[in-house]
C-alpha cells in the first residue's frame, strides 16, 4: 500500500476502523482497512467497480460484520453492540442509498417523515415543517403528496437524501450521490452537501465514481483497489499520487487487459476433465 500521509485530520474522530478484513464466504473482499474520519470531515471513497467500496460502506453502517478488526462509530465499537444499542446509534446516522430506497406504498412526504415518526415524539406540525424544509432544500417543494413511482430517478435520489438528513444526523453515508443526475443537478447536489456540512457540521462518508464531484466536495479521499486501501489523502495529494493505478483512475484509463496465457488457461479449465 502506498499510503499518502494524512494531513489536516480533524481532532475528534467520528469513524475509525482498525485492521478490518471482510469476507464473502471464503473470498476476502477487504484487507486490513485502517481508516479514520474526523468530525465535520467529508471523506470520499473511490475505486473501480469491485474494489470493495460498497462492501466497506455496508460494514461502516453495521449492516455486515467484519471477519477481523474493529469499527468504531461515534466512540462505540459497533461490532460489540446489541441490536437495541445499534438502533440507538443509527439515530445519529443518515443513509442515502443510490436509488433513494423510498417505500413505494407511501407518499414522498410520508417517506421523508418516517424516521421522525418512528424515533421521536415531536408534534405533527413540527414534523410536517421539518419535512417541507428538507424537501425545499432538495428542490422538491410541492412533491410531498406524490408517490415515489411518480418521480424521476434524480428526484428519487434527492427525496432519499431528504429522508437521510431529516433528523440532522451527526454522520451521513451517501452512496453515489451524482450517479444518474444531469450535470446541473449534480453540481447543485455537491453545493448542498457542502452547505449541510457547513451549517450542521455533519461528518460525511461518500462513495462515488464521479471524479469532478469527489474533487469538489472531499476533504480527503480514500482510494480502494482490490479491497485494499491504495491511498488516503487530500484532493491534491491524490491528484499527485505516484501510484499508477490511481493515475489511471483519475485519467479514466482502461485496466490492463494483457493475458498471462498459462494462468488464463488454468482459470478456464480449472475443475474440468483431467
Amino acid at each position: 500500500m502506498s499510503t499518502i500521509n494524512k494531513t489536516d485530520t480533524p481532532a475528534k474522530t467520528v469513524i475509525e476502523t482498525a485492521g478490518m478484513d471482510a469476507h464473502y464466504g471464503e473470498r476476502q473482499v477487504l484487507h486490513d482497512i485502517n481508516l479514520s474520519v474526523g468530525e465535520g470531515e467529508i471523506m470520499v471513497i473511490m475505486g473501480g467497480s469491485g474494489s470493495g467500496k460498497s462492501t466497506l460502506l455496508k460494514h461502516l453502517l453495521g449492516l455486515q460484520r467484519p471477519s477481523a478488526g474493529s469499527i468504531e462509530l461515534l466512540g462505540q465499537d459497533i461490532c460489540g453492540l446489541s441490536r437495541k444499542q445499534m438502533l440507538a446509534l443509527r439515530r445519529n446516522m443518515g443513509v442515502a442509498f443510490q436509488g433513494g430506497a423510498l417505500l413505494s406504498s407511501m407518499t414522498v412526504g410520508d417517506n421523508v417523515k418516517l424516521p421522525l415518526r418512528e424515533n421521536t415524539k415531536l408534534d405533527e406540525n413540527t414534523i410536517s415543517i421539518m419535512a417541507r424544509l428538507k424537501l425545499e432544500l432538495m428542490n422538491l417543494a410541492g412533491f410531498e403528496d406524490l408517490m415515489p413511482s411518480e418521480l424521476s430517478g434524480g428526484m428519487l435520489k434527492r427525496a432519499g437524501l431528504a429522508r437521510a438528513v431529516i433528523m440532522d444526523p451527526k454522520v451521513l453515508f451517501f452512496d453515489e450521490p451524482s450517479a444518474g443526475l444531469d450535470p446541473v443537478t449534480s453540481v447543485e447536489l455537491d453545493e448542498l452537501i457542502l452547505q449541510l456540512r457547513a451549517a450542521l457540521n455533519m461528518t460525511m462518508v461518500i462513495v462515488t465514481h464521479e471524479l469532478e464531484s469527489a474533487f469538489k466536495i472531499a476533504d480527503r479521499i480514500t482510494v480502494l483497489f482490490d479491497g485494499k486501501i491504495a491511498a488516503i489523502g487530500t484532493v491534491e495529494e491524490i491528484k499527485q499520487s505516484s501510484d499508477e493505478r490511481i493515475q489511471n483512475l483519475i485519467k479514466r484509463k482502461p485496466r490492463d487487459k494483457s493475458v498471462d496465457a498459462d494462468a488464463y488457461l488454468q482459470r478456464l479449465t480449472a475443475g474440468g476433465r483431467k
Partner: protein
Amino acid sequence: MDIIKSSFKHYERLHLNGEIDLHNSSVLRETLLSILNAEQHVLVDFSELQYIDSSGIAALVESFNVAKKQSLEFKILGACGSPLQVLELTRLVSVFPMVDSETCL
C-alpha cells in the same frame, strides 16, 4: 439549552443559550406558542445560541406563522455562526425579520 425570558421594550424576549435539538425543541415551541397565545410580541435572542437543528427551526417557523396571523411582531436578534448558517441554508433569513443588535429595535 436554557431559555431565559425577560421584557425588552414592547417585546417578550427569549434569550436562547446552548443547543436546540430533537430532545428539547418542543420546549422552545411550547414557550413561543404560549407567548403568542398571550398576544405578546416576540424577540428571539440568538446571540448565545450555539446550535439549532431542523426541529428548532420548525418551532420558529410555526410560531412565526402564528405571530403573522395575529399581527404580532416576531424578530430574531443577533444570529451568528452555525445557527445563522442554518437560517441561510434554509433560506429563512429572507422570511424572518432579523436584527443584528438591540440598538436596531
